[in-house]
């Protein structure tokens, strides 16, 4: 057996995790200290220092100084709004394609045919949408 200077090394050699016990203690102390600082600065100190004067008028919801227009902002909307918005985007893209094409158009039969095919495709979609009744607001 090799003689060591201190007796405390003896169990450390037997248990490989034991040297890390101070690290665990330090970690717990750091967590406790961190938790205390967060609690003290976020809850305790404001409670001791801040002026606290709850008043009925001060606690009313802020709406630019006027009474609330409606008590609850969470309302249900008609699904028709969604349908119209999606259809609008579809035909808006068509218009966005058509305009630069029309500006640059110089009696080119090939490009005319391509655009005609594009518009025809959308026309099929338009007829489908119309047939499904998506454009009718009242049902």
């Amino acid at each position, binding site marked *: 057996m090799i003689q060591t200077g201190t007796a405390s090394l003896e169990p450390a050699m037997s248990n490989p995790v034991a040297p890390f016990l101070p690290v665990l203690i330090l970690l717990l102390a750091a967590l406790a200290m961190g938790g205390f600082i967060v609690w003290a600065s976020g809850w305790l100190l404001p409670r001791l220092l801040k*002026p606290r*004067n709850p*008043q*009925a*008028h*001060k606690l*009313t919801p*802020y709406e*630019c*100084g*006027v*009474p609330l227009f409606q008590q609850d902002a969470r309302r249900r909307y008609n699904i028709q709004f969604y349908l119209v918005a999606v259809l609008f985007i579809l035909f808006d893209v068509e218009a966005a394609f058509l305009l630069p094409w029309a500006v640059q158009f110089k009696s080119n039969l090939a490009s005319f045919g391509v655009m005609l095919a594009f518009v025809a495709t959308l026309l099929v979609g338009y007829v489908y949408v119309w047939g499904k009744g998506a454009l009718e607001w009242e049902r």
Partner: protein
Amino acid sequence: MAELNLDDAVVTTRLDAIINWGRKNSMWPLPFGTACCAIEFMSMMSSKYDFSRFGAEALRFSPRQSDLLLVLGTITNKQAPVLRQIYAQMAEPKWVISVGVCASSGGMYRTYATLQGIDRVVPVDVYVPGCPPRPETMIYGAMKLQEKITAEALKARKDHIQAFYDSMDRQRDLEAEQGLTAHQAVRSMVLEAGQTGAQRIW
């Protein structure tokens, strides 16, 4: 006196002195701009006149985060309850600067529609004259407010604000009893205060 032996190592002060020192150097302005004084106020905040030199660069457009109400412009009778509500919702302690003649006294608008001075409906600390006042004048007004904050007692400021809350309660009761809208209630309170000679409703 023990502190005399310590020389400059220790600085002693009164609690209200150090609190007021902190308050006067960290004002959070809320602009209530209704007329051309608000245009001059933009100049006051921006680089040339630079109101942030006085610790008030944090301009907020919500009453929750501000403690200095700058009333910049004409306040009509319909706007009066709005001004009162905004002032009530501000964080305490709070101060009011009335900028320009319209806010201070109704100015040139001596009409049935205009409130003849906002001090009838909210407690005003400093009045800034001018139509509109130059940014220097507004800054002078803010410096006067700082002097006022330095000198005031903490309890006095608290009571001052409480008196306003009491008037808000009276307004609410009046609305409930007689079925009035907010501006009708404030108008009748202002007219009554004018007849009794009190001139102010808070």
